[in-house]
């Protein structure tokens, strides 16, 4: 029974579910203009969605290849600075900025991976940690591009050279990219590369025996993860319109890691859930609470504790809680029947 449930969950969810989700998300600006929800909610949700995109890439890396990257924030930051430089300083079109701002970090990512993936898996974590520190230095020191500590600004994107988006339009763009990424991830996982990654994670021996080049596949999943981080950075830059070096610190990388660990590894909906928990709960709930709200760092403690609790007691993430709830519900229901019968 359990097997069938898991199988149903795993089977090909039609794209329609993702698109429906996108449509629902797109209604938010409408709700704001109707005065039903606060203006700031749009900002919170937009950042949650952006972090979801980044987290989905990281999910491929951690969930399917079993590798940790601590450079997520650095690569996101790189994406912000590049796109700001290209659109604001160079005046080039948004689409070009998008491509370059994703490609350049990806190349740096590949170079990092080329070195560190030849060795044990944990080297990637340490190497990306080092790279992230170097990048933060770069953000500060290369002030002719980055403006150093003052930070850099950009504008809402202008699509196809003429369609100037406003805040709501940019939000819709973010939703669009999120749904796109969700579909892409879903497809990848259900194709031969996705299976190869799963095999690699489950048994390196089996993977090699089946002709899977482990090194190459690790590099591939890392490159994809970095690209999605950079994509998140681009979207962030054009929505928040401001970036600065200390936005791209280790804590952010850890928070994004928390998203997939808490929400559900190898699960697309789990990642979304995780993003709402890690980035939503602090903003929406914790900060409103009487005493805890005014304490800096409560969010970190909350997320850190949650990571540890989930790993120890709920390794598959909170998204799978509903199976257990259903199981327990069935048990209760059946026991009730027995008593009556």
């Amino acid at each position, binding site marked *: 029974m359990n097997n069938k449930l898991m199988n149903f969950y795993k089977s090909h969810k039609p794209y329609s579910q993702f698109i429906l989700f996108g449509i629902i998300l797109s209604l938010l600006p409408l709700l704001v203009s109707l005065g039903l929800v606060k203006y700031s909610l749009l900002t919170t949700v937009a950042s949650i969605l952006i972090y979801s995109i980044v987290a989905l890439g990281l999910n491929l890396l*951690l969930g399917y290849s*079993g*590798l*940790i990257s*601590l450079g997520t924030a650095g690569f996101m930051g790189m994406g912000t600075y590049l796109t700001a430089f290209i659109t604001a300083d160079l005046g080039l079109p948004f689409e070009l900025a998008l491509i370059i701002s994703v490609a350049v970090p990806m190349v740096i990512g590949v170079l*990092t991976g080329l*070195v*560190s993936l*030849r*060795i*044990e*898996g*944990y*080297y990637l*974590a*340490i*190497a990306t*940690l*080092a*790279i992230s*520190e*170097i990048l933060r*230095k*770069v953000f500060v*020191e290369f002030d002719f591009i980055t403006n150093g500590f003052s930070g850099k600004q950009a504008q809402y994107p202008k699509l196809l050279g003429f369609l100037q988006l406003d805040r709501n339009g940019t939000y819709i763009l973010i939703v669009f990219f999120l749904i796109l990424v969700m579909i892409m991830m879903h497809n990848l996982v259900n194709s031969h590369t996705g299976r190869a990654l799963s095999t690699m994670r489950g048994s390196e*021996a089996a993977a090699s025996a089946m002709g899977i080049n482990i090194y190459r596949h690790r590099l591939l999943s890392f490159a994809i993860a970095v690209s999605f981080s950079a994509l998140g950075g681009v979207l962030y830059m054009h929505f928040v319109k401001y970036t600065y070096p200390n936005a791209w610190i*280790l*804590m952010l990388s*850890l*928070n994004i*890691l*928390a998203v997939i*660990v808490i929400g559900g590894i190898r699960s697309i909906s789990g990642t979304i859930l995780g993003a709402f928990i890690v980035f939503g709960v602090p903003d929406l709930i914790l900060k409103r609470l009487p005493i805890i709200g005014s*304490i*800096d*760092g*409560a*969010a*970190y*403690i*909350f*997320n*850190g*504790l*949650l*990571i*540890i609790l989930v*790993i*120890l007691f709920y*390794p598959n993430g909170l998204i799978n809680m509903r199976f257990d709830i259903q199981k327990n519900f069935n048990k209760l229901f059946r026991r009730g029947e027995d008593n009556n019968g």
Partner: protein
Amino acid sequence: MDIFVQILLNSLETGGIYALAALGIILIFRTSVTTNFAQGSISMFSAFLATIVLIRTGISPISAAIVGMIFALIIGVLVDFFVISRAQKVNPVSKQIITLGLIMIFLGLAPMLFGTDPLQFPRFVYGSYSFFGATISYNAIFNIVVGLALMGVLFFALQKTKWGLSVRATASNEVVARMMGIPTASVTRASWAIAAALGTLSALMLAPTNSVNLSMMDTVQVTALLACILGGFTSFYGAVIAAYLIGFASNLLSFYVSSIWSDSILYLLILTTILFKPTGLFGKKVIKKV
């Protein structure tokens, strides 16, 4: 020449600071197969505790350091008791993530308990000494000597005592060690405690130049991890030697090349070195049995 001597002397101090932190990481790695990313955060936290004690009670820095290290020992035991010991069946990657979660907890707890302003922790000893045209502070000598002494004691314990034997046995093969009656759970707990203490001392040695603040151990953390990679995760001594080498290279680069980019260049150099020697300078190649 005198500049070189100055650099050498500075390196012994920096190297010592890195070595203490690296030793803690290696100890934990070899006994519980976990890369402890939280080493820096726990050290920072204990350093804050030591500083608060110093400020409130006015005891000497050396006493405060000892108090801080005792706090660290307790924290290490608590972390192992509440978290690590329950994570034995967890896969290595998840164990690493647990330590990342620990970072978040300590990084969140610290500002809550200690505020966000940096605190000052004074030197242990004052005064300086001229030496072949270079000046070295008594504090630096103190740090170098204490660092080396502590490491010496640890290595002696590892090689000559029963506890050390238990550690090496656990590090070699935890399951077999356990089956042979070695209390591997205690070994792990002690490792976390000692690692925390070593890291705290490292932080407090760093404190006079850096102030005690939330990100004080960031660079040391990365460098300590890289020292473990460079030295080879399979060797206790390797990480320590690598740490001194890094300290030396860091100071050299800082003076002769660029003080801003010295660390970045260093990181890149280490990563490229690994390309040629994946098991580190002193590590041994491990063949996986299929």
